[in-house]
């Protein structure tokens, strides 16, 4: 019986269950159908099937055969075993790959069964780890008993994780921050009205399109529409003002509804954020999982002291749950919240460090070539000398780069890095050294000639970079960070 096999059995490289061949074939066939259905539909619904169509069918058959063959080969060459405290998965025929996952880094082992896996008595085994999520660490079909045994063995071997704070029922919650009605109004008035304008515009175009179809095509709308438009300039101006006012009202209401009842509570090392009038949202942010903390405000929001905190947690990606934004209506409150991650006393413009002026000087050439000269050349063939208007973009771009360089400040302390950037708006970024996973030092040709470099700190939630710093400063900083991370051995999560 497989279930009673000794532990040593796992130390020998072994294949998945033979049922994996069918599972792989099935998933490959489904993928093929998904990819080829338009071609197949055209072929089968065409009246005449001449020699061209036959060639096409042969092509599809050949492609399918190769892909299915690949799936079978994939099964044959995929083996796994446990070697001491490591799970080893070997795969590939032409490109051979051996993946080693230390068992202590495995967070969870998932067993899944679709209809076919249930029919064959097998399960798909996948492994959650704090590492990359695209490493193909999965076994498509393992006998259910064997899969259970593997899960049990891996979980047994791995160190016991600390209790999940999400599961504790009795906890101390303190209200740290909330948005009152005046705050909500402030937030709503500075919302992205342009976005609302475009949503409304799209809605209007849609309504117009439907009206056109109801009223019998283009002729009616063209005739009466032209008459109406031609009647008065006042009508057009009123329409524009109405759309702008409506857009603003729409975005104000939308923002108020979204952030209604906003509360941030501090509960045993985590933030519990809840908001929403109709769609109620509740987000939990364990503070130890925050990798980078930043907050920013555009020019207008700076004037009214309204900031948005951006929390980048483990596995941060754009538009994902881990990507959390918190609206805050005073800089003092931002500093207070940020101190949960790193002590923040503000960035002193005079005492902090700056990046080298070569940053914007280089843009003189880069912008001249990429943004001005090449588009100018292209457009001049199309619209003639009027393309010269593009030259106006050049000083704007250079000025933008210059201001960004002028406003950039950074400094380090015992715990990490603090960075300030922006042109009209401002963005503050905090990074704790213990969160750093990798450090990169980049030097392009221009930087090499001037002994400059760009330093990039990579965390599990994103990157923070320091562009155009002196090479000596960059290497000294890297040495310091490596020392901090490697000597202290602090947990990053």
């Amino acid at each position, binding site marked *: 019986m497989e279930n009673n096999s000794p532990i040593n059995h796992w130390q020998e490289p072994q294949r998945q269950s033979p049922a994996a061949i069918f599972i792989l074939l099935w998933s490959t066939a489904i993928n093929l159908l998904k990819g080829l259905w338009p071609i197949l539909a055209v072929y089968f619904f065409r009246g005449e099937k001449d020699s061209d169509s036959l060639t096409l069918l042969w092509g599809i058959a050949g492609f399918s055969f190769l892909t299915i063959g690949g799936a079978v080969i994939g099964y044959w060459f995929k083996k796994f075993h446990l070697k001491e405290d490591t799970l080893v998965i070997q795969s590939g025929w*032409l490109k051979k790959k*051996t993946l080693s996952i230390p068992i202590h880094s495995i967070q969870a082992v998932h067993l899944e069964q679709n209809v076919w896996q249930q029919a064959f008595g097998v399960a798909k085994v996948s492994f959650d780890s704090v590492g*990359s999520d695209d490493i193909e660490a999965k076994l498509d079909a393992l006998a259910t008993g064997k899969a259970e045994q593997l899960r049990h063995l891996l979980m047994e071997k791995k160190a016991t994780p600390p209790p999940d704070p999400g599961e504790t029922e009795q906890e101390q919650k303190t209200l740290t921050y909330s948005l009152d009605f005046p705050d909500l109004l402030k937030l709503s008035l500075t919302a992205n009205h342009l976005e609302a304008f475009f949503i409304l515009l799209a809605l209007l175009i849609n309504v117009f399109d439907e009206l056109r179809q109801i009223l019998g095509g283009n002729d009616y709308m063209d005739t009466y529409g032209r008459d109406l438009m031609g009647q008065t300039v006042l009508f057009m101006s009123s329409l524009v003002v109405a759309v702008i006012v409506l857009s603003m009202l729409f975005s104000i209401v939308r923002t108020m509804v979204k952030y209604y009842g906003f509360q941030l509570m501090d509960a045993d090392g985590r933030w519990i954020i809840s908001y929403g009038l109709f769609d109620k949202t509740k987000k939990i942010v364990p503070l130890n999982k925050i990798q980078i903390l930043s907050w920013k405000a555009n020019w207008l929001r700076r004037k009214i002291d309204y900031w948005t905190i951006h929390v980048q947690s483990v596995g941060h990606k754009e538009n994902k749950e881990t990507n959390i934004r918190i609206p805050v209506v005073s800089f003092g409150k931002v500093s207070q919240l940020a101190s949960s991650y790193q002590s923040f006393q503000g960035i002193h413009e005079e005492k902090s460090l700056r990046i080298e002026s070569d940053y914007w000087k280089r843009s003189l050439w880069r912008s001249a070539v990429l943004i001005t000269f090449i588009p100018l050349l292209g457009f001049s063939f199309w619209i003639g000398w009027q393309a010269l208007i593009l030259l106006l973009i050049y000083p704007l771009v250079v000025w933008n780069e210059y201001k960004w360089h002028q406003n950039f400040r950074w400094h380090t302390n015992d715990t990490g890095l603090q960075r300030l950037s922006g042109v009209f708006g401002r963005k503050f970024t905090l990074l704790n050294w213990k969160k750093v996973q990798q450090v990169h030092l980049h030097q392009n040709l221009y930087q090499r000639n001037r002994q400059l470099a760009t330093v990039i700190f990579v965390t599990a939630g994103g990157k923070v970079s320091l562009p155009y710093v002196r090479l000596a400063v960059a290497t000294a900083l890297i040495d310091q960070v490596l020392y901090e991370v490697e000597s202290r051995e602090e947990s990053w999560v």
Partner: protein
Amino acid sequence: MQLTLSMNFSNSLIAPEQLPSIEEVSFQSLEKDFLVVERMSLLFSMGILSAIGIALIYFIDNLQNPVIISVAVTVLALMGIFRLLAINISYKYSGYALREKDLLFRTGWLTRKTRIVMLNRIQHVSVQSGPLERRFGLSSVSVFTAGSSAADFTITGITEDTAQKIKAWISFEAKGDGEQ
């Protein structure tokens, strides 16, 4: 109250200049055969691109124009020369270094990149080799740290034996077993 001082405790001052510097690291060059593998891969890619180009010109009448063919050949030749230059310069600069606490890899030709991964941050390691690499006994080692969506640190152009040794060493050190 009497204080008991531990004789093992030390808190000596470390000046920044005493820290191990990445500037002093001597990098290990990549295998010479890797240059051959890269050049052969380029030749193979150029062959495929040429075949596609020839097929397009053969089947599409509108492309059978001396000007179009000349432009296509020039672009392909320039691409080939550009890539060959990149391979040669990059090979000279590329290298890796293993230190007690971290792993360094540098690469690039126009923009040169040095990447440093701390061993206590490594989550997985993988060793892989393509058919052409195997023909020359070469492999590459990929290191995965937390939160990345793909292997973000790959040491290429090393022998199969070195790759396995590096993998074993990383696995050992990353677990903390390497510490006394």
